[in-house]
């Protein structure tokens, strides 16, 4: 199917994009790589009246060393993340997870900012950002604010972004030699995760789950188990205090089982 008709404008700067959003309110949507939005529009699950194309904002495509963290422009494509030497050295979890998204053609188009702003609990990169302890720089008509990842993801396809705000930068603390793992469970190559688990050990361990609730989430129970030295046993609570979706691939009980297994594998790999 083809999308419903819409007006289209190309933004030549982040400020121009924000001005266009401010003018059109909730009628308008940003178009980054389009690899979440266009499929939705083709199914008429989304029908924005105005698309503001930020796909040409090359100045928002970068991966920079910013001292204690790595700064990544919102328009940086998955392909650039998965091939970055800087990320290999400083944020290997994010780099690895970018390479797990979809297939190469998808990764040539999809952007980190788009993947996060879409707020899909089944997406891989939100879990990587949550487990990495990352944050997002959000720009609106009145300037910038910085949100920690857990405060950004608020619900199913919902984020803390206001109608006239955009993500401009993603910040990921340098990981040093902290152990990490990403476990993505699916039945066929290129599929979305049925369940996924991102694990970062270290002094402040973080564990994020894919497709285990209405929003991308961290699992506090597993994290406090790890912080208390429970090691592999921390995985046993990964199916507690979660409300996973049910679909053709898996019911809730099976997803809880997968969460325990994948978190366990993740902790084992990250400790190895």
């Amino acid at each position: 199917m083809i999308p419903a008709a819409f007006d289209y404008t190309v933004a030549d700067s982040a400020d121009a994009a924000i001005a266009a959003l401010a003018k059109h309110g909730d009628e308008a949507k940003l178009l980054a790589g389009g690899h979440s939005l266009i499929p939705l529009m083709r199914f008429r699950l989304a029908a924005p009246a105005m698309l503001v194309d930020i796909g040409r904002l090359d100045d928002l495509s970068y991966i920079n060393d910013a001292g204690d963290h790595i700064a990544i422009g919102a328009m940086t494509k998955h392909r650039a993340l998965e091939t970055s030497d800087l990320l290999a050295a400083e944020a290997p979890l994010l780099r690895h997870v970018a390479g797990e998204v979809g297939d190469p053609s998808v990764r040539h188009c999809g952007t980190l900012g788009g993947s996060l702003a879409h707020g899909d609990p089944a997406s891989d990169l939100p879990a990587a950002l949550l487990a990495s302890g990352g944050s997002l720089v959000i720009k609106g008509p009145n300037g910038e604010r910085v949100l920690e990842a857990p405060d950004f993801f608020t619900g199913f396809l919902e984020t803390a972004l206001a109608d006239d705000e955009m993500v401009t930068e993603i910040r990921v603390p340098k990981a040093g030699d902290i152990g990490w793992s990403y476990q993505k469970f699916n039945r066929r190559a290129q599929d979305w995760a049925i369940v996924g688990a991102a694990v970062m050990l270290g002094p402040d361990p973080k564990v994020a789950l894919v497709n285990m609730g209405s929003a991308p989430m961290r699992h506090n129970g597993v994290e406090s188990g790890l912080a208390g030295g429970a090691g592999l046993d921390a995985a046993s609570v990964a199916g507690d205090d979660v409300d996973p979706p049910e679909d053709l691939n898996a019911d809730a009980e099976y997803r809880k089982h997968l969460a325990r297994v994948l978190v366990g594998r993740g902790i084992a790999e990250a400790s190895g």
Partner: protein
Amino acid sequence: MEVSMSVNRETRTSDVEPRTLLVHHIRDTLGLTGTNIGCDTSSCGACTIHVNGESVKSCTMLAVQADGTEITTIEGLAGDDGELHPMQAAFMECHGLQCGYCTPGMVMAATSLVSENPGGLDETAVRQGLEGNLCRCTGYHNIVKAVLSVGGMA
């Protein structure tokens, strides 16, 4: 809206509705029907082309997003004298196609994959690299053979 792009080394300018998908623009407006459509869900890869040298599913891009880009479709892969691109020749040689429906997309994805891996690919890398392209006939073995014969490890 007017869009202009280089398609197989020729500048093509047309008036399109913003909602026109790039694959429809290529097939219906430009008349290049080598690029196929196999699904509604961005999953089959039959529509794969190159945008600025990289494989892209043209059913998941708007024609307006391609304004100013360089597009190569399966029709643009062979030399001007009609000589097949080495990847096309390898698909023929290795029997990498049966009905041929997936083939244009498969070849475009494969050429992009090989150009991104100048050090050469092993079998696993080829299989993973073609993850986004489905074939209902061949069982993939001969496709993988064809791609390895062009872009395999020395």
